[in-house]
């Protein structure tokens, strides 16, 4: 099993946000997590990535069979975990190419492989740009500074394409994309998906799931996974909303 989350409880600033999450993701799978605003989807992705704001109070996260709770975010990244941020961070003064090369070479080094020099890397990254239909001029721009919403999302996928993670967590990567950009991004993800990796897509809309078919769909409500199913669940949610699931939770919660 690539990722196993067991009874995960998470707090931030003294408030419990995740209230017992169980989730298993294996290689070759694509999972979708849906749910209303504030249900804890981003928190889940950030906790898996090791964000320092969150405290795990109970439960565990296993990656390839080992707990990663004590690992720094960079160690998790080296293990092969990648989160595409819902709100990609602007980093003034640092160009895309510098960050990409440093990140790529850090990973190469961690795996005991040869780093690429700037020229070799430039060839490599230009190929990756094509994958997400990104103008190579963006490589010389400061990371996410002055990028449009869609450009930021595409930039996240470019980073993912360069780092080729085992587990890709895509937090609302589809929102704010017009239909052309959505197709490009979806094609990019599909070309990366394979038998030895897995993707978890957090999304509001079923729209993206028409392009990338998930094996499993989970719906989060109030810090819990209220329901899991196959891709038809996404369609149901799109039609009926989340209220019927909230009731579900309350009944189970009271039981």
């Amino acid at each position, binding site marked *: 099993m690539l990722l196993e989350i067991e009874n995960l409880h998470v707090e931030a600033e003294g408030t419990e946000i995740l209230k017992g999450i169980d989730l298993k993701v294996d290689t070759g799978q694509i999972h979708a997590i849906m749910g209303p605003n504030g249900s804890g989807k981003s928190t889940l992705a950030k906790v898996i*990535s090791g964000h320092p704001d969150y405290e795990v109070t109970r439960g565990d996260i296993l990656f390839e069979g080992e707990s990663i709770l004590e690992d720094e975010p960079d160690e998790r990244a080296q293990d092969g975990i990648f989160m595409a941020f819902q709100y990609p961070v602007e980093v003034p003064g640092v160009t895309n190419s510098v*960050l990409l090369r440093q990140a790529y070479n850090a990973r190469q080094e961690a795996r005991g492989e040869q780093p690429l020099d700037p020229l070799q890397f430039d060839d490599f990254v230009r190929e990756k740009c094509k994958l997400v239909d990104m103008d190579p001029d963006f490589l010389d721009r400061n990371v996410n500074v002055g990028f449009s919403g869609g450009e930021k999302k595409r930039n996240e996928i470019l980073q993912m394409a360069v780092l080729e993670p085992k587990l890709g967590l895509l937090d609302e990567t589809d929102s704010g994309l017009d239909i052309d950009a959505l197709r490009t991004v979806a094609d990019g993800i599909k070309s990366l998906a394979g038998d030895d990796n897995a993707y978890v897509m957090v999304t509001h809309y079923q729209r993206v799931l028409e392009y990338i078919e998930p094996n499993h769909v989970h719906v989060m409500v109030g810090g819990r996974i209220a329901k899991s199913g196959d891709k038809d669940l996404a369609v149901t949610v799109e039609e009926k909303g989340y209220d019927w699931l909230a009731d579900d939770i309350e009944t189970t919660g009271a039981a």
Partner: protein
Amino acid sequence: MSAESQMNLQDRSESFVRALLDGTEDLEGPTRRHRLRSDALERLETLRVPGAKDEAWRFLRLRPMLDVEIGSTPTPSDDEVQQLVDAKAFDEADGRRLVFVNGAFSETFSSLEGFGDDVHAGRIAGPDEADLESIDGHLGSAADVFDEDYFAQINQAGFRDGGYVVVPPDTAVDGPVQLLNVVTGGDESFAVQPRALIVAGRGSKVSVVEDFVGADGSTYINNCLTEVCVEESATVDHVVVQGDSDRAYHMNRRAIDMDDGANYNSRTISYGATFSRFDVHSRGDGEEIDCTLDGLAILSDDQVSDTHSVMDHRQGHSGSHQLHKMIIDDESHAVFNGKIFVQQHAQKIDAYQLNRTLSLSRQAKVNTKPQLEIFADDVSCTHGATIGQLEPEQLFYLQARGLTEDQARELLIFGFAAEIVDTIPVASVRDRITETIQAQTRSLGA
């Protein structure tokens, strides 16, 4: 402060002045330097060393500098100098490099053959001093804004030599000019007083890199003064790099005179010296001038660096830009005071000033005061100051991409500096400073 310690301070300052002027008493005859010297000595009669009560100096303690025992200036070996020159000399300025070693012009290390016939460049106090007509009317002219400045007057009275570059009208100098001030010495402390004059004639263009470099461990006072005259529609690019010895005291005065349509573009990078003070005064006495006074100071340990600048807009339809950044670590102390004056008849002025500090330590101190004094009504001026730490969200973002916390910090600190460094117009100087600053930031914030 008690009357007694005040007296001591004045006593100290008198012996300080004597020491800095030592050996220049023999200046003879009606040379320019002689005139500057006698005027300056006269002013020094009434000037006092600035103290805690002087608004412009209140954050600095000058006492440690005044207490430096100033001995005779050493003559270093060529090997020693070679090392420092090699580290700073850049290819683009080969043939246009003036090198001063401990304040004295170095025939060995300078190369002037690249200036061509029309550009006047060389040393101010050479054997042909009396015949240097090209600097007549320029040497000492912009510096009059420092008539009341104690340290400027000590330089005027006691500088032994200096470099000048005078570009005739409608001439573009082929490539950048380097003014390289190398200071190195033995166990005794000493003082140097570099001087520079840059004149860009009407419609001309020149790029100057002024480097100060010292051998770490040497204790000295570097009391330098630079004048820049940018005449009608001329353009001057000016990069100043302060990389003095870790035990040096760097006192830097710079006066810029700008005529109609003049462009002055400067970046000041400061990372050396235990103590540095910059006073930059730009006098915009023409319409349609454009002045940039950007800066970057990087401080660690107990370094102190203070920048006081004045942008004086005396005529209209002009613009100025000043982004001054400071990175402070450990117990260092950074001071910024930037004044923008817009005089009564100077309408349509577009002035921008921002001071940004990145603080990497709770013990580090910063005092900042951007100041506008506007006497005209049709102007657009913005100014401000920010002080911040590294952003946790940015750190997490980089770590989530696989950079260690140290690598992430380094990249962010460097990114903060890069906004200034990346605008240095000479590629190899930009690369050199990038490397220097990367080496500096590697040890910062740890």
